[in-house]
């Protein structure tokens, strides 16, 4: 399983001859190198959860519809349930276990707690991985379907609530903690802290 630190990592195998049955696959996850014996049909999500004990990434729908399995591969968010593990050799994988620690939470983990961005917590690892990627995407000038002007993109300070929702639409929350999730992303984006959800519910709408 955990074999080494990254310094002695061997080069990615060429795989130019067909592999039948199980083979040794080495993956780089959260700055550590892991080797597992798996068939080509095994998904990254199943390797994380069933072989490596990295059960932060969750299996919700297993079809790329819910987002609970979201991880970062080479810095980009990806559904690990739709990724074959053998295809990830040589790439840099980060899971929720690699984003923060119990001693030092990732700013998004802290913001999710402060803003009630969860209820049961099952979707939360995927929501936080997706949100971490969202912040980077905005910094790098990535557009969304509702970005008003494709030649003038929002930065983190001006990112609208609608944009955050659109950009997180690949992650479902069955508990409906969306208000808190959006508030957490706003907080880490450096935007003014939104009103607590409970206040919004009892206030009269502005005319």
């Amino acid at each position: 399983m955990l074999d080494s630190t990254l310094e002695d990592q061997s080069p990615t195998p060429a795989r130019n001859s067909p592999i039948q049955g199980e083979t040794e696959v080495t993956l780089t996850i959260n700055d550590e190198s892991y080797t597992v014996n798996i068939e080509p049909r095994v998904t990254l999500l199943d390797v994380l959860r069933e072989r490596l004990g990295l059960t932060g990434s969750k299996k919700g729908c297993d079809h790329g519809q819910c987002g609970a399995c979201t991880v970062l591969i080479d810095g980009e968010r990806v559904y690990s349930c739709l990724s074959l593990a053998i295809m990830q050799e040589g790439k840099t994988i980060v899971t929720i276990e690699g984003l923060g620690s119990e001693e030092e939470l990732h700013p998004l983990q802290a913001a999710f707690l402060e803003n009630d961005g969860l209820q049961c917590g099952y979707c939360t690892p995927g929501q936080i991985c997706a949100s971490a990627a969202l912040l980077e995407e905005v910094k790098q000038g990535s557009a969304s379907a509702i970005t008003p002007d494709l030649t003038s993109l929002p930065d983190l300070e001006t990112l609208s609530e609608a944009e955050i929702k659109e950009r997180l639409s690949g992650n479902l929350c069955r508990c409906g903690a969306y208000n808190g999730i959006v508030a957490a992303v706003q907080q880490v984006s450096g935007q003014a802290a939104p009103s607590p959800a409970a206040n919004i519910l009892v206030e009269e709408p502005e005319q």
Partner: protein
Amino acid sequence: MKQFSYVRASSPEDAVQRAIAHQESQFIAGGTNLVDRLKAFLDNPSELIDVSRLGLKEIETMPDGSIRIGAMVSNTAVANHHQIREHYPLLSRAILSGASQQIRNVATVGGNLLQRTRCPYYYDTAFACNKRQPESGCAARHGINRMHAILGASEKCIAVHPSDMCVALAALDAVVEVQGANGQRQIPFTEFHRLPGNTPQWDSNLEPGALITAVILPPNPAAKTGIYLKLRDRTSYAFALVSVAAMVAVEGDAIHHARLALGGVAHKPWRSLETESFLEGKTAASETFEQAAEIALQQAQPLSHNHFKVSMAQRAIKRAFTISAQGGSTA
């Protein structure tokens, strides 16, 4: 998933040779649709040929001003490329309105063209489906068919092509570059996908073993005003009920270079040449676009659950042309 062997191709030629030598094999790149189909036992290849490490990841401007997009470029990278945003904004918007960021990051341009229908009767192996199993019947025709085709369908199949990107590419007169057993060839985008007829098991005219290597966008000054308007059951991360890729260039009051393609209505991205020739030279006015929308849907044959798609498509077409005539932007 059934068991399969796995190999990485070393070049496009190597990939094609392997696929031709091993007819039960399939290519995999992003895998966002294929892995899902493998899980559902819809595809049961004996070998997967990984083409994701072949390069083909460049977006280049060619000497004639066209833009060549490598087949392995991610959907995200196409949507965010500065030249695509500036010169073909409807392509950026079409891509960004499809799937989710997680899917678009991994999904490739070539794979987007080859994704298969999300018809629930195709996906559920307990139902009859001529696309999944030729000559077994079509459970959708008299089933819950509100998502299905209203144009160009057949007795054998009423499935729709799920892509948003392909609708924009059809309107932009894109060309698909293909590597086959006998070398490279180019296929006009509108001839790449096919209508179901009696053989709905074939989605495209790509010959067995051939590999998409690029999609080429010809230069098109009118594309700056192009619109992609997608209507669906929820605001985001849903397939289109109806989508419209439309553009018109207006000089004085007269229209030239009208383009119209529809998504969510047919087995392929539905380009309406009749509408385009009707619009040529007409005045850019509300009544003109209303007539154009009627022409586009003249041949529509709605099913028991999707009569709504006809008027929905007509209204979307009118709106998209109207905004394009005003210079474009979001619809």
